């Protein structure tokens, strides 16, 4: 799969309160969440983001709360993938579980600037910066996470394994 879009650059430690402020967590509706995505980091973002655009950030992206509303809001805003220097662990799991492609790529996170046009080869983990004529490699996705992706997310993965694990209920 190839993704292409314009980069929105953010800094380090973009936490889940910046991705989707808790004041909007009285709903789980993805489109409503998308309307406030990244609002406290950049109030313009929810209005100006275009389908396919790519969020690029520094270290520790998605730190803080466990809210799955964060990757959902990003996905529903039309963002095709996230590229960051590193991720906080709960966000990392959540993104895979809901099917938001994310890439750990410190060099890309450093070099890419807002507005750069990017092309991402999801399977190979290769990020091409068309604006700067540069290429970066993402850290390979761990094999187990790869399995979850191939199954179509955690719920489908669990469905496949269900019979094997299911217990008798008292």
């Amino acid at each position, binding site marked *: 799969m190839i993704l292409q879009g314009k980069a929105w650059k953010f800094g380090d430690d973009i936490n889940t*309160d910046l991705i989707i402020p*808790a004041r909007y967590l*009285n709903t789980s509706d993805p489109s409503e969440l998308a309307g406030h995505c990244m609002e406290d980091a950049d109030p313009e973002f929810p209005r100006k983001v275009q389908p396919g655009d790519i969020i690029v950030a520094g270290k520790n992206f998605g730190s803080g709360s466990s809210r799955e509303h964060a990757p959902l809001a990003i996905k529903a805003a039309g963002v095709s993938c996230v590229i960051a220097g590193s991720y*906080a662990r709960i966000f990392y*799991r959540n993104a895979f579980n809901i099917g938001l492609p994310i890439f750990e790529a410190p060099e890309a996170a450093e070099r890419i600037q807002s507005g750069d046009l990017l092309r991402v080869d999801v399977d190979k983990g290769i990020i091409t910066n068309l604006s700067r004529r540069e290429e970066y490699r993402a850290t390979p996705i761990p094999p*187990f996470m790869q399995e979850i992706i191939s199954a179509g997310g955690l719920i489908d993965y669990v469905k496949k394994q269900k019979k094997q694990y299911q*217990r008798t209920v008292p």
Partner: protein
Amino acid sequence: MGMTITEKILAAAAGKKAVRPGELVNAKVDLVLGNDITAPMAIQEFEKIGVAEVFDRDRVVLVPDHFVPNKDIKSAEQAKIVREFARRQKLTHYFEVGRMGIEHCLLPEEGLVGPGDVVVGADSHTCTYGALGAFSTGVGSTDLAAAMALGEIWLKVPASLKFVYSGELPPWVGGKDLILYTIGDIGVDGAAYRAMEFTGPAIAKLSMDGRFTMANMAVEAGAKNGIVPPDEITREYVQGRAKRSYQFYAGDPDAEYAKVYEYDVSEMEPAVAFPHLPENVRPVSAAGHVKIDQVVIGSCTNGRLEDLRLAAGVLAGKKVHPDVRLIVIPGTQKIYLQALQEGLIKIFIEAGAVVSTPTCGPCLGGYMGVLAAGERCLATTNRNFVGRMGHRESEVYLSNPAVAAASAIAGCIVGPKEVL
């Protein structure tokens, strides 16, 4: 090769003799937890799996606590989804308004989590229960859904960091200060994907409430879990309280740590974390008398009885500064009642504070104390991110309850010594 306490608990839960950091395991969970923010999404995913019932109705705990008593119509709908699911599944441990508390204060109090447990909760502060010598970590709603169905979860065994605290704690310095200084030292991702093991003579003397505060904020350093090896203080807490059998695990003497940090607590003074990260820590004497509009004492970090006693000790016979709103939120109904019986609530109200029913409320900018643009709050909570308690141009500072109480009196950030 020896194992750490975290590795031993995970090995047992995975049915293995030994595990190593980095290894993927499928661990049985002793308890899973969701709240009114995360459970509705988990319930929706759970229903897609196609199992009729949760793996064990005694081990799936649902606690509406973030936006209850319902703050608006949408929150009411969310809470209703949780309530109806709990009824449908006949869950033993669903906690309704009036009988509830902030989840991470409530579960230990109710004896629902204990030493040696593996707990996953769809709330990042689920790491709190590590204070009891359990492996406990936060997950998202989809992971919660899978765990509710299977009673198992896949986990990568984390490498452990050991934090050794020695010396005598000075007055007004406690668990909150230790964890804030630690985060200040290692940074907000300093323990990313790792276990934080809290040990040493100062921890051996630290109360359970102080330990809960420390383990609670492990996630603020990016940790997977925080853990305190259980001892007599743990035993005293869980005896007569635990609703299930529990097991004390201890790390091997030759267990391997990715890194060991050592701190002498003797010269510490209360800590304050400045906006907008918990790592921006300064001693209170260097806080520069920052003027504040609001003080919040409560949350899963510092809403326990010991916290309220500390705050009341400072506030007794004094008045909240005219320019400050002081909001006190006991962590659970039991804590609230105990505080009432001890006369703490009287002290708060006479000082000019408002006392709220247990809720996460203002900690995450939900309600019960949301900030306007330009306003500053000193809170005993756990996060001071941009917009955390309200407007994106508001500010949150973090401290222990005694500093919070003293600052409410002074109208600016000061240590207790300045008002007593």
